[in-house]
């Protein structure tokens, strides 16, 4: 696609541009008002987040896994998977600090199953990663199809009872 003849000069110039941009970027990191520093991100290995289907999730529920509902408080109150707790990750994902404060409530050291409504798995993923990053668990599972898939499989759902987790 790109001609190799006469490639050296633009490549050299491109390297200079990248070098200048990187230097400016690192400088801006030092001066950024929110104080973003070059701290290593918590290592979340690739197999730390596992997407599972409703059948596997049901097997985990039967074994006593902790289910975390990432939907909003009212949605959770309306219907939820029995025994689930609510850590709403919408409309904005929870900050690490808030998450850690709420995670103190769970004393069980288990591999949690995160679920949402099945439409925005990216938000479930953010929550699951945050759980791993916070050091609460080595691995977090995500119910890919959310509660919609769970209900479609005919698995039990608690309706309009129970209270969302404190703080909602």
């Amino acid at each position, binding site marked *: 696609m790109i001609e190799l003849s006469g490639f050296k000069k633009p490549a050299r110039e491109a390297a*200079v541009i990248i070098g200048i941009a990187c230097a400016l970027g690192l400088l801006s990191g030092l001066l950024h008002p929110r104080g973003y*520093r070059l701290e290593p991100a918590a290592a979340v290995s690739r197999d730390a987040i596992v997407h599972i289907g409703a059948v596997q999730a049901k097997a985990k529920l039967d074994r006593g896994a902790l289910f975390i509902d990432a939907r909003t408080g009212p949605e959770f109150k309306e219907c939820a998977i029995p025994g689930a707790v609510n850590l709403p990750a919408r409309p904005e994902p929870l900050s690490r600090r808030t998450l850690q404060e709420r995670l103190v409530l769970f004393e069980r050291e288990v591999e949690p199953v995160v679920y949402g409504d099945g439409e925005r*798995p990216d938000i479930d993923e953010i929550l699951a990663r945050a759980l791993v990053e916070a050091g609460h668990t080595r691995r977090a599972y995500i119910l890919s199809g959310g509660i919609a898939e769970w209900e479609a499989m005919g698995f039990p759902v608690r309706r309009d009872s129970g209270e969302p987790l404190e703080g909602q």
Partner: protein
Amino acid sequence: MNSMMNMFKGMVYGNGVTAFFRIALGLLFVVSGAEKMLDPAAFGKTVGMYGLLPGELVPLAALTIPPVEILSGGLLAAGYRIRPAALIVSAMLAVFMAAVAYNYARGLRFDCGCLGLARLGFDEQIGPAVMARDLFLLAVSTMLYRAKKHTASIESFAERVRLHNL
């Protein structure tokens, strides 16, 4: 059919349409880079979600990718050092497409964090639509790299001045 072919040849050589694409692509990169630079921590989270870089390199990437986007996009839009800028933009798009394809293939669906459009309510989840858009942008940047003439650019203006002073 012939006129279509001629128009395409004209674009590849460099005409007003090429200049429009150059400026539009450049501005797109400037805006997208600026959006990321305003919130590097959020961008770092997105980079981390791609799962391609070790944790230690994620903040480094979050701090350096946006200015590279801004500088190369700015140079493209202004029409200065067009070939190297188009080369950088092409390389970034190619790497980005591969990253999206890799994550899409392993079943992950999350906001691609490409242009910051999700904040405005647009769906930017990784998938075929994002890949198709990037493929189009890659075709445009490749065309810009190969184009011989760049109207409405600093380079063409400097060349005119140089010829005038001969």
